[in-house]
């Protein structure tokens, strides 16, 4: 494979490429969807293909083909160069890339339980155990869906600068959702499991444990009341802190979005958060869903400090954005597969713990909300964020009170980061999937934190 890729890379220079790279992948997937006790589909995939990227006169050309045959790859490079040349016609500022160390490496993963070697029967068995546990929890649980996915394979990356990385890929992911109903009221709940370690993730995230958690929440929501609408103090659990670190802040600090005018633009070295806030994006957490050794530009993943004691000290980069901002690449260039080009993506994003217990965080709150687990979140370039919450409780006089349902919080990220007035000492990382045109596997998390006030949008 290495020799073929080297020949193909050489051909790109002949077509006029100033820089060329090829990412060749062979992938195997297993996917399951179960609805209640019905296996809706057991799916297996075998695929290969290559992503090719060139810089011609400062413009990017990209081509992808479902083939690893040298002739096809050369034709694709020729297409990419022609397109890049056309695109370069109106360029005022040509694209340049920050320097990256030339590396040659082979990354072999040695999972204790390799998902590629586990039978489809066993995977169906695990998923069925999960649906059975959910449905058995309470008769008000009306339905559940379990999705399972594993992806294994190898990625060969080579560029015209001499970097060559051969890297195994391994992802195991499961999502369980439950719906509950009682007297015309519908609730639902979701949990995800995700790992780059191996199938052994189910030894700790057992069907018993995860199933109970999902079902219990759906049922508990049935007796929950609607939240009040308005501005209230809130204690955010690690799962919600994670989505805040990722959605509300993280995307703004992806350097492509920063450069596109996110509210973080021009804030490097400036204080944008309370002293208590430090945020990392870390690609090196062992076995975590957002971890890998090299990114899809051949740059080693690292632990990147984004906010230190409230001050912006870093952004997440690919080689192009690092050059634009005169910084070093951080290993955040990721592509979902050979069909797409790498984008600046997060890895494991978390807020650093400090020293408070949960009781201490709750203590000062006369009336507010404890936001335990999120349903979804989204942020705009101007820093407006929205996070939907699937599990929340009232806080009354410093004590956790009744559950509330369908809470959604919103605000401006920077204003809210300044309002963080206490940070807990616990820590959890939660796996998830992030969409930015492509899907990336990530984690996010942190400790419990307290926010002086946040806008709560109640149900109508």
């Amino acid at each position, binding site marked *: 494979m290495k020799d073929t890729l080297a020949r193909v890379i050489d051909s790109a220079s002949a077509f006029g490429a100033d820089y060329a790279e090829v990412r060749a992948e062979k992938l195997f997937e297993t996917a399951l969807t179960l609805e209640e006790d019905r296996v809706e589909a057991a*799916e297996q995939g075998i695929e290969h293909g290559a992503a090719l990227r060139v810089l011609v006169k400062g413009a990017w050309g990209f081509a992808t083909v479902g083939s690893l045959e040298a002739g096809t790859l050369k034709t694709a490079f020729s297409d990419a160069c022609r397109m890049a040349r056309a695109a370069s016609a109106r360029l005022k500022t040509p694209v340049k890339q920050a320097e990256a160390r030339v590396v040659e490496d082979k990354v072999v993963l040695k999972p204790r339980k390799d998902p590629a070697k586990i039978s489809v029967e066993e995977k169906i068995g695990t998923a069925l155990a999960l649906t059975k546990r959910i449905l058995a929890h309470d008769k008000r649980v009306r339905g559940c869906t379990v999705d399972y996915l594993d992806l294994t394979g190898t990625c060969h990356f080579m560029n015209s600068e001499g970097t060559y990385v051969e890297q195994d890929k391994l992802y195991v992911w499961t999502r369980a959702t439950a719906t509950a109903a009682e007297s015309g009221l519908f609730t639902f709940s979701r949990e995800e499991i995700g790992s780059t370690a191996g199938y052994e993730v189910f030894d700790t995230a057992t069907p018993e444990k995860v199933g109970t958690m999902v079902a219990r929440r759906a049922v508990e929501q049935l007796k929950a009341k609607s939240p009040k609408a308005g501005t209230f103090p809130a204690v955010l659990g690690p799962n919600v802190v994670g989505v805040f670190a990722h959605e509300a802040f993280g995307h703004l600090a992806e350097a492509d979005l920063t450069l596109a005018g996110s509210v973080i633009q021009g804030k490097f070295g400036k204080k944008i958060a309370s002293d208590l806030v430090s945020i990392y994006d870390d690609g090196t957490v062992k076995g975590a869903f957002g971890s890998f050794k090299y990114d899809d530009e051949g740059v080693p993943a690292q632990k990147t400090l984004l906010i230190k004691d409230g001050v912006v000290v870093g952004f997440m980069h690919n080689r192009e954005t690092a050059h634009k901002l005169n910084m070093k690449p951080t290993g955040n260039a990721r592509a979902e597969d050979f069909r797409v080009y790498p984008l600046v993506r997060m890895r494991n994003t978390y807020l650093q713990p400090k020293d408070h217990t949960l009781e201490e965080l709750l203590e000062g709150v006369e009336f507010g909300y404890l936001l335990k687990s999120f349903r979804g979140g989204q942020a705009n370039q101007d820093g407006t964020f929205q996070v939907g919450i699937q599990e929340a409780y009232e806080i009354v006089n410093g004590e956790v009170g009744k559950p509330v349902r369908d809470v*959604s919080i919103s605000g401006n990220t920077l204003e809210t980061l300044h309002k963080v007035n206490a940070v807990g000492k616990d820590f959890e990382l939660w796996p998830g999937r992030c969409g930015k045109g492509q899907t990336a596997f990530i984690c996010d998390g942190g400790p419990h934190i307290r926010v002086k006030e946040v806008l709560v949008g109640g149900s109508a």
Partner: protein
Amino acid sequence: MAALRQEQALNLAEEAVKTALKKGADEAEAFIFRGESTGVGIELGQIVRSARTVDQGIGIRTIVSKATGFAYTNMLNSKATVEEAIARALSSAKASKPDKNWHSLPAKKPLSTVKKTYDPKIVNLRPEDLVQFAARMLDTAEETDKRVSPIEGGVGTGCFSEAVANSNGVGFVDRGTAINCSLVTVAKDGNETTPVCVEFNAERSFNIDPEWVAREASHLAISALKAKKTETKTTNIVFTQFALQELMQYAFINSVKADYVQRGQSSLKGKIGEKVASELVNIHDDGLFEGGLLTGRFDGEGAPRQRTCVIDKGVLRSFIYDSYTAHKESRESTGNAARSGYLSTPSVEPTNFHLASGRTTPEDIISEVDDGLIMYNLQGAHSSNPVSGDFSVVATPAWKIEKGELAYSVKGAMVAGNIFEVLKNVSALANNERKFGQLVAPWVLSGNVKVIGK
């Protein structure tokens, strides 16, 4: 990786079905998809990106003792790999559990004709042409107002062909084209940055207007400046297609999918014949809509696409079905089996979900509103409760309407409500219907929605 001609694709699909039956499948189906796309991308006011994608593959569904297995591969040139995929589809089926509700793959039925789904002009466009269209968008945006930055966007074309064959006599091929252009802008004035504003064209025929897209995206960003907070109150909302599409997708559409209904995960279960929306509301799922983004002759399992009345004058008339969910109720598929290329088994999805437009002009809709908000776009619809239809989103960008006129742009307002209540309270529909993903709809005026401001 030579391009498959349509008849070759059908032959390959039929061969795969035969092989699967020979290897022990009770029933088998093969779906072949080939897609080619070309695009140029705008970033920070420049055209810096171009991409060409060629993707083709086969997805094989086998049924063994009422259990379903599926496998796919994109290695169509390797006969051994296609056979390996067929073997995996069979091993998946054998590992799976029998489904007592399984009936059969759909039988062959006559197909309707569709219009304006394939345009050779799109196929013949060169990368240089796409760069020209993108350049025209950038020029127009720059000329409109210097406070506007075009931050993202692009122009793309696609053409695809698909073939489906099964052991029940189905054997169809079709092809289609699409073209789109889009521009994402922000406006900056002093310390103020607007939320991102988007405009686009997406068509099946070569019928885009890059200048219009750029002008609209720029005007939108400029008018989003000088944003103010608004007060908390229950009021009227004009939903544009951007906002409506998000809410319908995340809070409503699952409720009319037969699989959700049959599993008790739809608030509309048991409500056929009941009034569920304002009598102004007429919705068809129209797989044959002329030039529709999701129009085709057959669905993902080879059943005919059709026009299905979902809501008639506010009364719920039908859910949407694939052949599996239809058999469960001893009825016919409505042609709503969707696939993501060759990579997955079919699932129930709408085609062109068409909310019929009214007669009122958009200007008259606004002039009817004494107090309210026009919500152009929103954030957070995906965290809606898909069963109850409750949503709580941020309106961004949005404008306050006072005494029939746009008063000022609004920042940070949350809008909380329930999509079923919104549909019940519809008091006017504009005459500005457009295609928008799965939705074809006009602006919609509804009342009694809670806006949470400062």
